[in-house]
């Protein structure tokens, strides 16, 4: 799976989780850029990404993720579909 495809599907997940059809994320997007992305919503986001890509994040990754790019990188390594 290439990075563009991952980013596209991630964008859909973000739109779904944050309930905002116009939301556009890129690799540099962080929690500061999306108002609703707080530490608790992060849990729902992670669960949604895990479901979309049929993979699991490690706790260290969940707690240490700095931006969407890092998330996409982990997905690329581990995604099953």
């Amino acid at each position, binding site marked *: 799976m290439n990075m563009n495809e991952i980013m596209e599907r991630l964008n859909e997940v973000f739109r779904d989780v944050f309930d905002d059809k116009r939301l556009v994320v890129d690799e540099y997007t962080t929690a500061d850029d999306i*108002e609703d992305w707080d*530490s*608790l919503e*992060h*849990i729902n986001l*992670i*669960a949604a990404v895990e479901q979309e890509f049929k993979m699991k994040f490690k706790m260290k990754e969940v*707690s*240490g993720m700095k931006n969407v790019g890092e998330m996409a990188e982990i997905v690329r390594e581990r995604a099953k579909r």
Partner: protein
Amino acid sequence: MVFSSLFFLYLFLPLCMLSYAATKTIKSRNTVLIIFSLIFYAWGEPLYVLILILSAVVNYILALLIERYRDGTGAKAALVFSLVFNIGMLGIFKYSGFIAENINAVFSADIEPPDIRLPIGISFYTFQIISYIVDCYWEKVHAQKSFPKFLMYVSLFPQLVAGPIVRYSTIESEINMRRTTIDDLSSGITRLIFGLSKKVIIANNLSTIVDSFFGSEIKGLSVMGTWYAVILYAMQIYFDFSGYSDMAIGLGRIFGFHFDENFNYPFICRDVSEFWQRWHISLGTFFRDYLLYLPLFGKRRKYANLFLVWFCTGLWHGASWNYVLWGLYFGLFIFIEQLVGKKRMKKIPIAVKHVYNKLVIIIGFGIFYFENMKELGNFFKNLIGLNGNKFIDSFVTISLENNLYLIIAAVLFCFPVAKAVGQLVQKSRRFCYVTGTAQVAVNICLLLCSSLLLVDATNNPFLYFRF
């Protein structure tokens, strides 16, 4: 030893600063800090200082093992052992009496609660150690190879007894190499004096008033008297705790360390969730990073983990059910705010939000104060006049009249008034040459006032002996 004492301010600290300044290499500077930190701790805890050192030795070795056996199961085993050891130490020294009492109550057993006094600061330094060990396991930091350097991180007296919980990653480079600039020294001393004044001038005096209301049977208090005292109590804890954090951050800077902020004007928050992003920040981020994302509860983990975090936050503050209740109480309001959602929260008029969150926060401090459940019940009844108490009486009006200036100052300094004035003055070029002089004059005045109050201190409580 506590910061707000003449012995610390006029003997211990100057001696420590002189010895520190007299040394040249980082190794000898670290040695000075270790010696003074151990004396600082041993002053009040001559025996328990050994537990502090034992914790440092055990975790120093375990971190090295984690790094050495990273690829095998050895790292995981060392991590688990460390967590069991650290949480076990907290369990024995902080919670064994509480656990025994509860077992007795539930099973009608007759276990003698062990007579163990809580080592001061154990909750703070244990959490620092846990964060270090987990960060090593997660490869966020390298294990410290030098035991003295690690011991210094664990025992560093500025943050040892009342926080903040300083992450190893925050000061890792400064442990190995640091220097105190003139700017560090000057802002460090200013911050220390500022924190000292918050504690001695405001918090201690508020504490005297609160004690006169809540100190004995509270059933007879009027409705307004109960509200008045609990509002002052909320401010007392803010000035006491944030004052200690200011002193810690200031002392850190004097020795070239830059700790993260622990308070950010919590009372200006617009909702309860925001309050906790501004109050005791180092504890909130600790639980966020090391507990909130624990994959324990499957699909429902968002809310299950939320309540787990708040249960632990409550319990961390003291081994008593009122603290657990207090934690879950805040968890409940944050849960409700999550259900309402940020977008809908935004539509609520700002005045309504302020009334709502201040009510929740202030009543929360009542739960924090009353360990005795019967007294807590009376407190709630008092708030709405269910004890047949008067609405207002002269006890409140006289106290308010006598302490008006103190209370006005306290309310003002809860909000970033001083900060705003400072920024305004700094912007104006005409004033800029006087600000430096004014700062020194203010510092001297505050130090003098605080010292005079300490000479005659009848009420200078140390509130963190439970943490």
